[in-house]
């Protein structure tokens, strides 16, 4: 069980990591990066899977089921959109 201060440490380190990773991003990549980070929080899908996985009543199942649909949409949609955007960033050394 991750409790108390350990959780706090994880939160703090993760927060600094996120801050640092973004800090050096050129404006040109802001939209793809927002989309990319949107994809990364699609990890919520596995949380939704666990929530639905140990659901016991039908109410819990319904909520969990919707959460899984939404989470899968977040992950898949986020990936496809980001990938489509980044696909277009080609190297520019030709022509010029």
């Amino acid at each position: 069980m991750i409790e108390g201060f350990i959780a706090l440490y994880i939160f703090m380190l993760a927060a600094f990591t996120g801050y640092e990773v973004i800090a050096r991003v050129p404006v040109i990549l802001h939209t793809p990066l927002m989309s990319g980070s949107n994809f990364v929080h699609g990890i919520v899908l596995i949380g939704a899977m666990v929530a639905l996985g140990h659901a016991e009543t039908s109410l819990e199942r319904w909520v969990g089921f919707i959460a899984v649909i939404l989470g899968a949409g977040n992950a898949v949609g986020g990936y496809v959109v980001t990938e489509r955007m980044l696909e277009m960033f080609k190297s520019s050394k030709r022509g010029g």
Partner: protein
Amino acid sequence: MIINLSYFVAAVLFILGLKQMSSPVTARRGIIWAGYGMVLATVVTFFHPELKGFLNYFLIILGIAIGGALAWWSAKRVAMTDMPQMIALYNGMGGGAAAGIGIVALLQGKDMSLLIQSIAALGVLIGAVAFSGSLVAYAKLQGLMNKTLRFSGQQKMNIALFAVTVLLGLWVTFSGNDVNNTVLLWFVVLSLVFGVLMTLPIGGADMPVVISLYNALTGLAVGFKGLVLDNPALMIAGVVVGAAGTLLTQLMAKAMNRSLGSVLFSGFGDTATAAATETGGTMKEIEASDVGVMMAFANKVIVVPGYGMAVAQAQHKVWELCQLLGERDVKVKFAIHPVAGRMPGHMNVLLAEAGVPYDMIYDLDEINQEFETADVALIIGANDVVNPVARTDPSSPIYGMPILNADKAKNVIVVKRGKGAGFSGIENALFFLDQTRMLYGDGQAAASELIQAVKEL
């Protein structure tokens, strides 16, 4: 053991992926790495010890199939110009999922410490607000909802609503294992309503900041759910996104010279109309053929694209035009304002789609000195980001916003659909300058005419 190891690897892949996405050269690899991380985490979760019962497994697979297929289908179909609202939509789904996880955890009422239970409730609140708020942002950008709803006392009402929602959240938190379903239901409903009411009064120009904010909020909600579910992958990925999204939101708000507070709590269009000053002079029209001559014999042309180019889908024609000019040894550069379009980097994405190499594209800081040496500044569908009023008129709502100094160029050509004001409703002083000429027309049609004009020379 294997599961935890896989989650660890997935978290590493996410962070490395995001890191690689911060450079154009490695960006593509970054999203693919993050994708591997996601697939790995999802697959091993099927072996998670807490998953039990055939029905639950069936529903999980069905849910992934439905959500995944719909998202895949819509994401493949959407045009590049509509990307911002799709990001809002998928982000909203993530927020909804996070709220759903919290609701299930609270319904089950397993022995949670007070801390965990409060985090679960807080995650529901944030997730639900991000969900409904993102949907409103989506509807606004998609044009499903044009009206910006404002009424007097709105802020007071929002604050009151928020207070009631928080009280219900506290009630849920302190209910222990025995959470009252009705209270929980109202807590969720009011959170959703608050998300809607908070987003409704925000004008379209501020939407990118709002989407970014909701992106960060969803990340935070996901991180909280990681704590509730005791899942480090969720905690790390969620909080990384939460922090990164917060920074990104600040960068965007700063680029627009708006504090986050003023984006969320004050109207934009209202003050704009009141402060619009009469600008002297007239707008002078010009023919495409004359512009063609002007650009073909110029040394340096700087193109300033804006949302108008996105709407007209003119990026391919614009690039064709620039290639023609390049053949004539005209130096062509693209100047991108951080908030041009509906999102930072929106224009870069569109230009990249058209095949414009990214080293021809310059940021505000990189190019602003160069306008003085440019023969022509070609402004396509941009407005507020080149409005010199931001430098000169303290009463203007955009006063102080960094702008592209297009007014310093020897000639300014403005391609514009009509004579109306920009998105913010502010009159643009640039259009009335002596060296400015207006080329009226849809961005794509105007670019085609210009191509024709240059070819005929």
